[in-house]
């Protein structure tokens, strides 16, 4: 019998992140041609944001639901590593990730509230302008958070290639002499 694991607070935060990203994307896609669906997804996004800020307030400084404020020590440590030539710091968690997360939370709150104003008082231009600007911020956030994992994957692949190069060379040499590497072993 398999036992189901109780989701951790971090799992719940990832679930919240996924749902919010989904609500934002659907709201963006429905903005031009489906006003009722746009309002529905917009209200879901606003509800999710309200939940996020409420839980962050209850959590205080406790991770992972605390607001992602990059601490001064994190910046100092990151700058020190870069200045001393340790570029490996770029492969870890940089302070830009929480900073972009915090900026996104703030901007999304403004976008959602301006959407509410557009719904109630027809302030649509303000909402449209802010929503278009928010997309740029989302793309920057995606670039920041995916940079380190992609770079890690590339360097790991390069290391694998370098490690396997002598084996491949040996294999090609054996083939040239009509022997398989397995028969040599």
């Amino acid at each position, binding site marked *: 019998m398999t036992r189901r694991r109780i989701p951790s607070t971090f799992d719940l935060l990832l679930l919240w992140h*996924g*749902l919010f990203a989904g609500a934002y994307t659907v709201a963006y896609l429905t903005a031009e041609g489906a006003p009722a669906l746009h309002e529905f997804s917009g209200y879901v996004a606003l509800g999710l944001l309200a939940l996020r800020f409420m839980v962050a307030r209850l959590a205080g400084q406790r991770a992972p639901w605390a607001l992602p404020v990059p601490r001064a020590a994190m910046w100092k440590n990151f700058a020190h590593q870069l200045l001393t030539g340790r570029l490996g710091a770029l492969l870890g968690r940089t302070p830009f990730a929480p900073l972009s997360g915090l900026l996104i939370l703030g901007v999304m709150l403004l976008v959602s509230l301006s959407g509410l104003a557009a719904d109630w008082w027809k302030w649509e231009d303000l909402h449209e302008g802010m929503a278009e600007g928010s997309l740029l911020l989302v793309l920057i956030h995606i670039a920041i958070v995916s940079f380190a994992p992609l770079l890690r994957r590339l360097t790991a692949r390069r290391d694998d290639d370098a490690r396997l190069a002598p084996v491949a060379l040996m294999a090609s040499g054996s083939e040239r002499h009509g022997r398989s590497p397995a028969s040599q072993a």
Partner: protein
Amino acid sequence: MFDKALKQVLFGLLFMMAITLAYGTFYDRGFAPSLAGVVGLGDDGHHGKHEEHHHD
């Protein structure tokens, strides 16, 4: 962590598309226009109205 977050984003996107589609199907303009709306091809209910519009 990146892969897990990416999976959750895809799940969230599909889930939100599904519940928005359900909302549109039952409370707005039905399945087909809602499906078009959710994937970004909505026409704001103006389809076919341009032909009926007469200029004086």
